[in-house]
């Protein structure tokens, strides 16, 4: 970690997060993934401004236009239009809100709840904790999509029920990883030292242990996010998620299948957007994991 080039030698141990960041910067794939993901995020946030048209606007004079680089394409519809004459670029951009924005929200909500419960469970000991652990192991072995399907069977398919389902489904993963991380950290010397200093439980929880498990949390967030994106898209694809005509990528994909022979671009584009987003998140998560391993090995 010889990153300090100032004249005065002063070595400062970077924080766990910062050291991860430094490590990831050495991996070109991770950097690329980071830029792709940031681009997707930016596109999502700015989609109402940068989308050329409303995602639901139908241009009856431009039905089934191929993308602009095709001979029959028009420059005003860069990615072409679908069979109802809706601009595909606008739809994919606006779809990012459903396919990236909502998973982000679900992940954030699940992280908040899951970390709180996980930290509480990690700090307590004995039967309570071991029971929870076993239970979680079991719950986690049931696929998240299956649980989401059941919740949707109860509530009916709609945007808000999908959000509820995905959030609920993600919570156990957070509890599990945070709980395990706490469990490992809480008997380490530095925590005991802090305890001997008479710090309160709250202080130990938030200021002593938590900074040391942020890397685990970040990794879990990337994992949960890719799960959430894929699950929401899969539900949309099965017709049990966000309902058409909302430009959710999975729903768009399912719809595009009717014309896949004539309008292949309506199938390729949402799928590609989905693939790139998930890939960038997975690459980020993967390099995080590698960085964490490296750090543990190094220490």
């Amino acid at each position, binding site marked *: 970690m010889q990153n300090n080039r100032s004249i005065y030698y002063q070595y400062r141990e970077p924080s766990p997060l910062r050291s991860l960041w430094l490590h990831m910067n050495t991996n070109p*794939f991770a950097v690329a993934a980071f830029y792709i993901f940031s681009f997707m995020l930016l596109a999502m946030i700015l989609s109402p401004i940068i989308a050329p048209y409303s995602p639901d606007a139908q241009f009856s004079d431009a039905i089934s236009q191929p993308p602009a680089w095709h001979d029959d394409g028009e420059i005003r519809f860069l990615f072409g239009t679908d069979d109802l004459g809706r601009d595909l670029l606008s739809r994919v951009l606006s779809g990012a809100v459903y396919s990236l924005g909502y998973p982000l929200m679900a992940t954030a909500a699940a992280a908040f709840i899951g970390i709180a419960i996980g930290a509480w469970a990690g700090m307590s000991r004995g039967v309570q904790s*071991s029971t929870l652990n*076993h*239970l979680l192991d*079991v719950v986690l*072995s*049931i*696929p*998240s*999509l*299956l649980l989401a*399907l*059941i919740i*949707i*069977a*109860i509530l*009916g398919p709609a945007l808000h029920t999908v959000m509820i389902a995905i959030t609920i489904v993600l919570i156990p993963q957070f509890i599990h990883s945070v709980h395990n991380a706490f469990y490992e950290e809480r008997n380490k010397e530095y925590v005991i030292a802090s305890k001997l200093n008479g710090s309160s439980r709250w202080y130990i929880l938030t200021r002593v242990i938590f900074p040391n498990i942020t890397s685990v949390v970040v990794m879990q967030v990337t994992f949960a996010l*890719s799960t959430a994106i*894929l699950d929401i*898209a*899969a539900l949309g*694809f*099965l*017709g*049990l998620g966000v309902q058409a005509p909302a430009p959710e990528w*999975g729903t768009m*994909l*399912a719809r595009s*299948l009717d014309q*896949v022979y004539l309008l292949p671009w309506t*199938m390729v584009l949402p*799928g590609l957007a*989905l*693939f790139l987003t*998930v*890939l960038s998140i*997975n*690459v980020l998560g*993967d390099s995080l994991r590698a960085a964490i391993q490296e750090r543990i090995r190094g220490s």
Partner: protein
Amino acid sequence: MLRYSLRRIVLLIVTLWLLSLLIFSLNYWYPGNAVTNMTGISASNPLAYQEVYVARGFEDGIVTQYGEFIRHLLQGDWGLSLVTQQPVFAEIKPLLGATIELGLLAMFLAMVLGIPLGVYAAVQQRGPMDRIVMGVSLSAYSIPVFWLAQLFILLFAVKLGWSPISGQINPLYAIETQTGSILIDIWLSDSQFKTAAFYDALNHLWVPVIVLAMMPLTMLIRIMRNAVLDVLQQNYIKAARARGLSDSTIMFRHTLPNAMQPVVRQLGLQFSVLMTNIVITEVIFNWPGLGSWLVKSIYERDFPVIQAGLLILASLILLVNLFVDLLHAWRYPQVRKEIDAE
């Protein structure tokens, strides 16, 4: 080992009990009438309704109802489908057979390709081939399974004509459904076109199997690569090198058996992933298995079927996890100590 096994089995029983509680409460959470959701008999048929109302303990409290629920469950009386009014339990066997056949074949394929590729990537660590294998596996891991399935159908079935689009077998072969697993059914059948039917079934199988194997395959490659790298850094490998053993002996006698440990541990998780994807794959390939059955029952709001689908899929996953855990503990005794000591 015995202690560990017992402990693990008790845990399974507790879990199954919790699962039954969950499924029991689902009956009350689903829209509509709990008796109908449980039995598939609607109140518009007053005679039969009254009968099941009493039989399911609805005249008494919730505890009796739960007791009756478990009793009926164990007796194989899982109610009637709301749509077809046919007993749900009788439908399960062929569906389970079809799902397991698809899942097992995909798992085999994933292991057969994933383990050698993982080892290969580890041996070539940081070499170009390692990068390629890992890059491809990470990309393949990120492809949504429904998109992949559609692309494969378009490529292999429509463009190239190498395989049919969906289904288990050409229905003109009158193969009687007994186990649900098409290959076994053909073998059991007395059709005069057995060989042709067998080839036709294989021809239907390979695309869904590859689609399904993709995700566990990519994960296995990564797990295997990391495991081999870990083992290669161990002192006993260095010691073996120092003793002058050949590379292949080190690999096959010392590295691989130890590197398999995390792979075996992860098999249960891989199976869960596989089951998620099997739901979607079955829908796309019209595979007559549990996954497509469950999804259709959700479309049709057929609550007795939804419950049965959930129960069977979840129990299957739990059982496989138990099996993998026991196998793991039996094969790698050092793990048992860790678990027992907790």
